[in-house]
């Protein structure tokens, strides 16, 4: 709360700095703004930046460092008996953390009192440390803000290049923003790698990648039966591939033909209605597809299977795959539509001019010209299918069957990741760590697919631009 007020004060100072810088620049040239190197606003921004940024950085650094420093201070100040356990040795790390937590709570006033008066006293002391720290921070931050603004104001001259400086700062800010996205990705990858490494320290990588048995239950007690834990992920890979394959069998032809119809045949009116409708499919939450698959499609397949004497599981790969295919249609069709309309009209005219019919033109000229782009789009759709979770969680099974029969229940990598992590789990058993290993495999596969797909799409674009 107090920090918030400080931020507010800094903001007000920054605005004042802007005004001062602006008016000073105008005054310097006696109102003849044309004599200034930059527009007056840039001088204002320049002063405002010098006023706000150093102070802001200081506050952020202070706030993030304050906690650990104060904790160390208070621990060196508390009576030493608090840090000893009953046997006389130093207390364990867990107990220390507990103590620090207590102290913090007392200092913030969330806990009124504890049984131990020593702890109580130390907590109050921490509170006073905090007050001192905040006071110091306020003084230093305000001094920095005023000092920065004052310095910047002195630097303002008619031929001072304020615009260039301001633009440099803005550019730096944008670089930081883009770095943030990259760093987050790197962080995720690293955590995946580390946790997978821990997993592979317990389960050999060859067993994980090539084992045919998946049953990740671990024994909680030594005498438990039937929970040995087997981490052969091949059935999961096979299940993922089977469902993705079914999805692509549905999505690719439908998406392709829909896109070709819309790009080449549909009258403008039809196109303007059908295209947004098809794109709505992409906006349906996958969870909706999920219960559509589980409650409507799967029973339908099971019942119609019975009519033909087929035994179709109610969690069949077929149902999940078909619904996933429907979900992916818009991806295939919108990318295909883009690349087909990107084929220059001159190609079509050239073909028509030779007496080709519309279908000959599409088959022999437009489609081959658009093929690389279409392949790229399909690859993107495949990586989407492999990574899709919600539909398979709801409609595919949990048992890891190694089968190519679409009527049976199979499970996928994503489903297993979800089941491994749902509920209360220890985070150091191979069971939970296996989720990271599966995630890593998924990540590597989709990344490779995306890279290939983007490369193909880009190569195609170069051809015509």
């Amino acid at each position: 709360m107090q920090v918030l007020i400080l931020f507010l004060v800094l903001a007000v100072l920054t605005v004042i700095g802007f005004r001062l810088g602006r008016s000073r620049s105008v005054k310097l040239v006696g109102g003849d703004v044309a004599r200034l190197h930059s527009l007056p606003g840039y001088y204002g921004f320049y002063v405002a930046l010098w006023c706000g940024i150093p102070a802001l950085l200081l506050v952020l650094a202070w706030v993030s460092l304050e906690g650990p420093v104060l904790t160390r201070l208070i621990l060196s100040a508390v009576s030493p008996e608090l840090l000893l356990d009953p046997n006389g040795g130093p207390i364990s790390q867990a107990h220390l953390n507990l103590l620090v937590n207590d102290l913090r709570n007392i200092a913030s006033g969330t806990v009124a009192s504890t049984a131990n008066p020593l702890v109580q006293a130390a907590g109050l002391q921490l509170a006073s440390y905090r007050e001192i720290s905040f006071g110091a921070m306020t003084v230093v931050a305000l001094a920095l803000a005023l000092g920065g603004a004052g310095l910047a104001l002195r630097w303002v001259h008619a031929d001072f290049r304020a615009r260039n400086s301001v633009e440099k700062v803005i550019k730096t800010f944008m670089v930081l923003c883009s770095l943030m996205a990259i760093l987050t990705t790197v962080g995720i990858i690293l955590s995946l790698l580390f946790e997978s490494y821990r997993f592979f320290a317990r389960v050999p990588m060859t067993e994980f990648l090539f084992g045919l048995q998946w049953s990740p239950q671990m024994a909680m007690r030594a005498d438990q039966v039937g929970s040995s834990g087997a981490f052969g992920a091949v059935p999961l890979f096979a299940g993922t591939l089977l469902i993705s394959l079914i999805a692509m069998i549905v999505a690719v032809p439908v998406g392709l033909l829909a896109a070709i119809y819309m790009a080449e045949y549909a009258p403008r009116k039809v196109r303007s209605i059908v295209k947004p409708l098809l794109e709505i499919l992409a906006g349906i939450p996958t969870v909706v597809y999920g219960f559509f698959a589980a409650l409507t499609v799967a029973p339908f397949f099971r019942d119609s299977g019975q009519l033909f004497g087929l035994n179709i599981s109610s969690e069949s790969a077929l149902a999940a795959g078909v619904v996933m295919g429907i979900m992916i249609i818009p991806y295939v069709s919108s990318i295909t539509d883009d690349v087909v309309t990107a084929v220059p009209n001159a190609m079509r005219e050239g073909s028509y001019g030779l007496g080709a019919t519309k279908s000959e033109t599409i088959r022999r000229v437009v489609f081959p010209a658009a093929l690389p782009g279409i392949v790229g789009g399909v690859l993107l759709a495949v990586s989407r299918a492999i990574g899709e979770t919600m539909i398979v969680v709801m409609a595919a099974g949990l048992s890891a069957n190694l089968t190519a029969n679409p009527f049976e229940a199979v499970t996928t990598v994503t489903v297993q990741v979800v089941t491994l992590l749902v509920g209360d789990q220890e985070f150091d058993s191979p069971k939970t760590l296996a989720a990271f290993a599966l995630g890593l495999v998924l990540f590597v596969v989709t990344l490779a697919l995306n890279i290939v797909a983007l490369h193909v799409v880009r190569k195609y674009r170069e051809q015509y631009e």
Partner: protein
Amino acid sequence: MPEAMETQMTAGTPLLSDTSAVKVAARDVNVFYGEKHAIKGVNLDIKQNEVTAFIGPSGCGKSTFLRSINRMNDTIDICRVTGSIALDGGNVYDRSIDVVQLRARVGMVFQKPNPFPKSIYENVAYGPRIHGLCRHKDELDEVVMGSLERAGLLNEVKDRLDQPGTGLSGGQQQRLCIARAIAVNPEVILMDEPCSALDPIATAKIEELIDELRENFTIVIVTHSMQQAARVSQRTAFFHLGTLIECSDTEQVFTNPIHKLTQGYITGRFG
């Protein structure tokens, strides 16, 4: 009689007295783009085995008229054509006419060279293939080689027929497009500013080629360059704002134009 009236509007000799030499006869042709009246009552005869040039300022409708001869305007939804354009006496806008067969008889070369993203060989073989002109591979080879030869391109590309046509230079690409057009063995070839994207040397080659092709084909060329019209054509038609202003022998049009507008245009006073 409206037809006679329209005819009188055009100076020179748009209609030929020797009807046996007429390849294409346009009568009272009007073209509309939605509300816009792009071509207004054009009457024109195009003579067999001659080069007829269409000249005129930008937007005067010369390309539109050219594209209505092989019904390329059909691909534009809002375009409507009235009147008749007769190819060897048969109206191309007649209901019985199959536009695919029409375009096989009336080939077209476009402003920007537009080879397909296929090999040089496949580019030329495209037309014969879709029309089923050749029964054997040997026959197709012969047609492809012959067409490239007639387009004056064979010597430059005979070692790399399997390479993409898009890899050729602009002038070579345009000659490839001409080879592609003549591979179908059309009777008329329409050329829509075929040299506007080319440098002077490539232009000279194409002009030379047009002059040779005249022996076997009837050629209609739209051009912005009056020198080009004067060099390659036997007859010249001058369009202005959708109307055919004047049409005569090329020499006549350039040395002794009848209409004031023609005179102004060819002397460079406007356009």
